[in-house]
């Protein structure tokens, strides 16, 4: 089948295929995308699992991410230490969750993490305000922003604690018709 690659062992490739939604060819293609960000840092031989991490600036400059207002949060959620610097494993994980094949609940889980700016496992009013401002590039007045955030909490907060927990968020997002098609990056 033309598998003459020397980057990964066959076992590693099989393990990646079991842990992500990608095929063998896609994993190799993703590896080359990862490597292209910093060819001098990323070795061509991954069979001994080198501990290579790429800084956030390189990840955020990828064409798929550079226009996304949430790219910093995405990188932080999927990175090892929460600082946006990603290893190859994190990289594969990120694109696997954002791919077409990932199921709704898996995407909902990570979407919640992305929109939770202060990492306190709740989407509170300040998180919502940051989200709206990122979406509209600060073009709404503070009263409008406040109104939008209040409406969102009113609609989605099921346990009435003034903020959205994971369960509230999942309950609301699972029904959204556009969620699967917008929370999707093709690479």
């Amino acid at each position: 089948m033309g598998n003459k690659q020397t980057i990964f062992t066959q076992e590693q490739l099989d393990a990646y295929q079991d842990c992500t939604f990608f095929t063998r060819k896609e994993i190799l293609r993703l590896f080359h995308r990862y490597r292209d960000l910093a060819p001098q840092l990323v070795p061509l031989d991954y069979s001994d699992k080198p501990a290579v991490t790429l800084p956030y600036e390189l990840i955020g400059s990828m064409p798929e991410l550079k226009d996304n207002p949430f790219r910093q949060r995405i990188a932080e959620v999927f990175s090892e230490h929460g600082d946006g610097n990603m290893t190859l494993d994190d990289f594969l994980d990120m694109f696997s969750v954002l791919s077409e094949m990932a199921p709704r609940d898996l995407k909902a889980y990570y979407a919640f993490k992305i929109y939770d700016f202060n990492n306190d496992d709740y989407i509170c009013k300040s998180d919502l305000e940051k989200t709206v401002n990122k979406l509209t590039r600060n073009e709404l007045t503070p009263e409008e922003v406040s109104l939008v955030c209040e409406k969102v909490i009113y609609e989605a907060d099921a346990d009435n604690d003034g903020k959205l927990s994971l369960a509230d968020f999942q309950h609301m997002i699972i029904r959204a018709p556009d969620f699967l098609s917008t929370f999707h990056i093709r690479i």
Partner: protein
Amino acid sequence: DGSEDNGEGSAVETEETAKGTDKGRKRATPRTRRAHARGRDRHGDEEDEDDEDGTRRAGHRRHRNRRRGRAAGNEASDSDMEPAKARKNEANQKSKEDDEEDEDEKGSKSGKGKNEKKGDKKSDKKGKKEKANKKKKDKKKSGSGSDSESEEEPITEEELAKLKEEVEEKKKLIATLRNKPWKMKKKLSVLKEAQLFVEKFEGALGKGKGKKFYAYKVMMTKKWMKFQRDFENFKTACIPWEMKIKEIESHFGSSVASYFIFLRWMYGINMILFGLTFGLVMVPEALMGKPYGSLPRKTVPRAEEATAMNFATLWDFSGFAQYSVLFYGYYNNQRTIGWLKFRMPLSYFLVGVGSIGYSFMIVTRTMAKNANDDGGGDDTSFNFSWKMFTSWDYLIGNPETADNKFASITTSFKEAIVEEQESRKEENIHLTRFLRVLANFLALCTLAGSGYLIFFVVRRSQQFALEGLENYGWWERNEVNTVMSLLGMFCPTLFDVISSLENYHPRIALRWQLGRIFALFLGNLYTFIIALVDEINLKARYLLPFTMFDMLLGNIEELQIVKYNMTIWEASLYNGTIPANSTAPPIQVDPADVPRGPCWETMVGQEFVRLTVSDMMTTYITILIGDFLRAVFVRFFNYCWCWDLEYGFPSYSEFDISGNVLGLIFNQGMIWMGSFYAPCLPAINVFRLHTSMYLQCWAVMCCNVPQERVFKASRSNNFYMAMLLFILFLSTLPAVYTIVSIPPSFDCGPFSGKTRMFEVISETLEHDFPSWFGKVFGYASNPGLILPFILLMVLSIYYLNATSKSYKEANLELKKKLQ
């Protein structure tokens, strides 16, 4: 260490334990070492994190990893772990002996294990894991003491069943691992653990009687899974144009890309149809049937021979193109052909029916899949939440599109805020309503106008035909086709302008647009069919002494007159006598000179092929002129023009999704209608779609700009599918009608000589199947059996509908309870 021998699994081990205690003694040494390591570990997970260096003892490291793997396994399974833990202890020990052989893998795993710990801290499964670990530690304490005895006992049936259950759980975990919200490192180590466990115990389970067979079954399952994975990889690699679509998606958003995905899907269907018609109809006839020139139906008539090879004739699909495998009329009605005894008429019939059946099946299946994905339905209870969390399209990878998207999101929020803050004023409603009624009235006028224009043009073409087509140029000859294509080009733009009066949300406006264009195309199609019938009528009247309408009504008398004329002509070769029963040897006549009966199937096929070709040409020319030349004009003449061409009129064009999608659907309708009469149609369509893909991808990237209001294509997908299904149904009606009710032409095509086309089935049953089969079929086609069957199907549809309604209601109830 005596563990090397035990690598093959516990089956070997039990034999060895039976041998004596020296093995036990040998094992005691590693066990005590491990017990010591376990003792250290018992103090808690947290301590292990402090050992940052990699110089810990091999047993300790492996042991911690094994425990963590099992912890993860525990999370996956909800069954009672208590009795299983004793099993797991054994499993641990046995697999540890295995582990000692692979040093570096374990070494790397420990590295992962460390990081995985940190990952675990983030997940909320930590509490559960600590509890599970504690339980395991206790078990190990008790287990370590009694290990020596439990290993020497034979495994009972009950324990075997439990082991099997665990193996199944592990397998399920491996299969669903990619759906778990864990970090990659954790997933990789859990995978490793589970795989080793399964490997170890697949061997163990094969004890006693069926051992060899079980091992064989396991190996075959593994090979089958590997094959499946390779096949999936291969299938994904086969999907064409993925990169192109991705580029378009990032520039123009997912609504424009959905058109190209639809195009690619249609291409797949057409490839299958092409495979069927080419492989089972055209190739056998070309290889095994009688060659060109051997029969009258396969030869160009003497009168047309002079112009048969001209490009103009070939472009028109007459001449040599007409008398070839491309059209219905070429095929001979011999029951079997060639040394393979290939049943040509049966194959032709089954391919025709099979194409229609396949198309129905695939369209319905795609609709069902899409309906599944849609989920909720029209819910307005989360308006603002959905705007906030699902409006940004993560596929956007282009700054211009991103700018448009930001602007559109801002506008959408502002609109929603305004709606929330004040109620609508009275005057607005009346004005909007009046404008919408006006818009609908204008749309109706356009539809009526287009219908009348087609009628007018058709009548003119009938006049031309009467006066002789040689007197007129290209325009008059192709007037009907060109006018239809032009109407299809300009009316949608007109509808677009009208819809700006209506002021709907873009998704609703798209639906109205699609509906109106659908009505336009449908009206054009019906007018065209009437025109077609009339035109053939006219040609027939002009050339031959009877009409197609008469044929359609089954006027056998006229056909018999033609047959009589032909026998007279034959007889004239015998110098004027009309023999009652001819026994003279047949005189060799060149097939080109034999007079022919009319072949209406080929004529119909030709018309469809011409229509498809002219439609293709019109689309390409529209793209080149409408999009490309316009873009060139705007770009280069902007410097020397009074007003800004790029912002005012005409500016760059936007990609017209609705027009293109409907064009594609109607084109496919043509193919379905005509492929029974012209087997070459799917081939032409495959070529058309292939070039269309490249041309349109280039045109979109080069000449179009992203839409002002970038919106989602979401649920429109099922709308397209529903229209496709409707068109499919309409297209197959004519073919089915002709198969069942109209006698085929008597001297051309594979069904010539039969009274009805479907008689080929009964003929096959008679000759090729044993007699009892024919009897059974005869009973089965008895109306007394068919009617109850239909009744049963209707009842089952009603039942399924009722249950689906009740599920929906139960769903709603649950939803209410949750809120």
